[in-house]
């Protein structure tokens, strides 16, 4: 499913936050992201990027979680 003009988590600058709209992966990877608290509707704050720019640390439901940019790209968000 491709939503035109949609933002992914990777597009959110450090210090900003966004709300999860959808997760594009399936199977075990999707399950993993859901278990980490990345469910539609949950708010994610971008805390910092590692020196190499990958991974990035996100604050999700009270816990700091590092995600690879490849995974963050699969997470669609809106900034409202």
């Amino acid at each position, binding site marked *: 499913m491709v939503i035109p003009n949609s933002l992914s988590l990777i597009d959110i600058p450090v210090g900003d936050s966004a709300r999860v709209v959808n997760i594009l992966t399936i199977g*075990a990877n999707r*399950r*993993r992201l859901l*278990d*980490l*608290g990345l469910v539609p509707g949950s708010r994610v704050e971008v805390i910092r990027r590692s020196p190499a720019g990958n991974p990035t640390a996100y604050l*999700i*439901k*009270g*816990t700091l979680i590092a995600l690879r940019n490849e995974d963050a790209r699969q997470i669609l968000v809106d900034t409202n």
Partner: protein
Amino acid sequence: MIKTASLPVHGQEATKNFVIALAGNPNVGKSTVFNRLTGLKQHTGNWPGKTVTRAEGTFFHRNRHYTLVDLPGTYSLHASSTDEQVARDFICFARPDLTLVVCDATCLERNLNLVLQILEITDRVVLCVNLMDEAKRKGFRVDIDMLTHKLGIPVVGTAARSGRGLSRLKNVLDDMVAGKIVTTPQQVVYDPELETSINEIAKRLTPYLPDWINSRWAALRLLERDYSVLDHITDNKNKNYSPRILKKEVALCLQ
């Protein structure tokens, strides 16, 4: 009969060792609860993967012996990492007398995911909402009675660092083991199409599963194509049914 029931426990009851599995998300104070209950000085610390394998300790309460097994902290029980597999296999296949889930009062939303997953495996669960002191400091009010009501299992609020709530927790664990508490665990209901498949598979699976494996849970794992549960099928009920044949049959079911 009625008279003997109120006497102190003797004989087999007194020598039996009750096993309690200790589960929870990483960094919720599981090891602190473990140390408080057992008096052991297991190392506690704030980094991921600290409890690499399981640690065991014992305690004695109201005339009963308990072995507490500290499992690695996990966000889920989907066996996608070694930690999760250790925790899941113990809760599911080692058949502890009960599972004590510790969660963080300051981020319940994150923690309750694991609680619901454990309730899909077993109804012998007590929830310990830890870090109540920190929650209070942050201005959260945790409604323990509401949680008890919604989850259908005993819930105890604790502040393990200072020891608050621990004696009540021990009493609740004991009441559970003694069969004084009946749980009615909250079950996750999936969408109708999935529920139909779950029920169909569970019904077919039940005769071949040992009665201590929840067939609904087993069906859910099979639907996720996690076949490890089939290794626990007993062949004494039906010698012709091997995990291999069942796997094939399940695959047909899923088509």
